[in-house]
């Protein structure tokens, strides 16, 4: 059995992993950079090791520092979370070489799926449909027009080492092709240190749908159904839901089988995600495989009823899968909204800063996975995602109603957040109808970035009155005999009544 796990990550995912460890009676080890001394994962863990300066390339991305902390703490296993070193084949190899259980797949699986050209080739060999395109790196510009003739325009140029929307170019006219390839190559080189690019046919109005898979060390692989992830802004997911409104039982079975095949093709172990593009005619194409836990894993946990981190740990400990494919079914509908510290009304500008006050939604069908607390200052160095809000309802409509209620209750002050933007999405017709694709945000941007006006004239005046009252109290302008009952500060009043002597 695994007794102690080092979590090589920060933020909500580090806390989320540690919560499951605590439930399993496993000790937890945090690592932290200078900016993260007060971060919740440090406070939540049983142990914490300092690993360097705030920029992640001087701390969370330095393999030696992570392994050093693992040795010092005598951890038996390392969980990489998502991001940072989670899809770094070298890290997985080093962990294992130095005697730690790496909670994730083999280096081989990671590197095969990490390079998109190899991944495409692997999927094709396994008989999984891929987006039509080149199966090799584009080495020179001579064959370009031939390629375009084969697939038709528009096409996408993509970096083989790609991720985060970098090294991608859409080409609509043949005359732009050469310059787009050059631009993509140069961007890929500066982002990933690798300028390999390939060309894919452009799928119009695509849905981004992914399948969660679980695979143990004994060759058992199952899928845990799909997540619809088409609500994206600049290739970053904003909202995910399960089931997908587009899905049919037949398509689910076919895509699930393809996902399992993809995992088997790389002898996958652990939790992973196979991403597909699906067009309006329900044709699906393998896109890539993420060889780690996803941000959006909680919606699968909710509709399937499985703790994915617990499953990861069991698999890493060498236990066979607890579930068979026939045990898996979706119950109800789950939606996740990602809450970012950013100002949706000022071009989504990140807004790090001090959290003054938080009220989180609770009650039936609500889960929050966050890491900020009152008095915490969000550092400027890392991802702006501060929380995930996951709701469940028996039907999709119930889940949307509950999400609206939860967003209404969710109050974070001190920093700007994406909550108003998310509220607007919940009120957009095509989202409500479940008829949207990856163009959704772009197509509706104008209405989505409109500040709410539901407050009305009286409500606006109430804000004015509150400010009037607060200011008058502050400057001690309320001098009537009734003054003693004004209690601008509950603590003070309490202090008085309890006759607390203060310094």
């Amino acid at each position: 059995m695994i007794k102690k796990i080092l979590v090589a990550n920060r933020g909500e995912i580090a806390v989320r992993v540690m919560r499951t460890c605590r439930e399993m009676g496993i000790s937890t080890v945090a690592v932290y950079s200078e900016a993260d001394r007060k971060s919740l994962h440090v406070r939540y863990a049983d142990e914490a090791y300092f690993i360097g300066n705030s920029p992640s390339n001087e701390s969370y991305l330095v393999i030696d520092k992570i392994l050093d902390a693992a040795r010092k703490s005598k951890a038996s296993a390392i969980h990489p979370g998502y991001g940072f070193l989670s899809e770094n084949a070298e890290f997985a190899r080093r962990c294992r070489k130095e005697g730690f259980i790496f909670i994730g797949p083999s280096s081989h699986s990671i590197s095969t799926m990490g390079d998109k050209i190899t991944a495409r080739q692997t999927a094709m060999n396994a008989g999984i449909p891929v987006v039509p395109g080149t199966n090799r790196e584009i080495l020179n510009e001579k064959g370009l027009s031939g390629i375009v003739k084969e697939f038709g325009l528009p096409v996408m140029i993509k970096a083989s080492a790609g991720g985060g929307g970098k090294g991608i170019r859409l080409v609509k006219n043949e005359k732009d092709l050469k310059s787009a390839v050059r631009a993509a190559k140069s961007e890929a080189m500066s982002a990933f240190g690798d300028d390999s690019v390939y060309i894919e046919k452009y799928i119009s109005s695509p849905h981004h749908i992914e399948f969660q898979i679980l695979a143990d060390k004994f060759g058992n692989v199952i899928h845990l159904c799909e997540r619809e992830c088409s609500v994206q802004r600049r290739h970053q997911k904003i909202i995910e839901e399960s089931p997908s409104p587009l899905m049919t039982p037949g398509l689910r079975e076919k895509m699930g089988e393809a996902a399992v095949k993809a995992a088997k093709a790389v002898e996958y172990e652990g939790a992973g995600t196979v991403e597909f593009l699906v067009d309006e005619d329900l044709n699906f194409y393998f896109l890539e495989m993420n060889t780690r836990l996803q941000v959006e894993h909680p919606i699968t946990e909710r509709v399937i009823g499985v703790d994915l981190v617990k499953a990861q740990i069991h698999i890493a400990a060498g236990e066979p899968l607890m579930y068979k494919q026939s045990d898996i079914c979706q119950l109800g509908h789950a939606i996740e909204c990602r809450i970012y510290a950013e100002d949706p009304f000022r071009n989504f500008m990140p807004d790090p800063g001090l959290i003054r006050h938080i009220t989180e939604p609770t009650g039936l069908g609500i889960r929050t996975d966050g890491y900020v607390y009152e008095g915490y200052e969000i550092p400027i160095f890392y991802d702006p995602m501060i929380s995930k809000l996951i709701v469940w309802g028996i039907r999709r409509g119930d889940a949307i109603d509950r999400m609206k209620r939860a967003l209404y209750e969710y109050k974070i002050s001190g920093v700007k957040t994406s909550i108003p933007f998310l509220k607007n999405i919940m009120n957009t017709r095509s989202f409500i109808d479940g008829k949207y694709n990856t163009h959704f945000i772009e197509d509706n941007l104008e209405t989505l970035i409109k500040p709410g006006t539901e407050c009305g004239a009286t409500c606006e005046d109430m804000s004015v009155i509150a400010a009037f009252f607060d200011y008058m109290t502050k400057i001690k302008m309320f001098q009537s005999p009734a003054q003693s009952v004004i209690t601008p500060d509950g603590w003070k009043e309490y202090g008085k009544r309890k006759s607390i002597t203060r310094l």
Partner: protein
Amino acid sequence: MGGKNMVKEKVSLAYNSFQMTSLDIKIKDRLAKVKLISKDKSKLTVMVDNKKYEVDIEKVGGGIYSILHKNHSYNVELIETKDSKSYQANTFYQTFDIEIQDAETRYMHNRNKADSLGTSKVISSPMPGRVVKIMVSKGEKLTAGQTTIIVSAMKMESEYKSPMDAVVKDIMVKEGDIVSANQPLIILE
């Protein structure tokens, strides 16, 4: 309800005659005149422009006021922003910037306006972040639109360009520095 004659209503509590009983409060682009009519414990009667409101207002912790008006329940969270006269007000539905306006704030406003004219040659970032790259050097001649500095925050990089043809008078930061929102980074002339 409402109507201008309401303004004449008497202040029902005996206030010190030197006391301020009205304030100008700016909310969004609107300047609201708020006048105290009476106050008895948590029961407050005020005029906001020409509308009279009788409310029950209670502070409930966390900087939040609970207000009952004609049996409707409102929650307003007030957060002081740049000084004690500036608030961000969060209601369940909307967020407002609010400013108490008096002689002092009006003076400061005018002064800031004057300042901002004089300082339009300062390049700064509206968000806190880390200086990734400085693209210019002191004394360099710039053309309008030329990138001067790149600042990153939370994995997003922003480029700040020169608003005009200018000369770099001073560079106030170096690469790797952590900067606050609106801190001067580069001075042009």
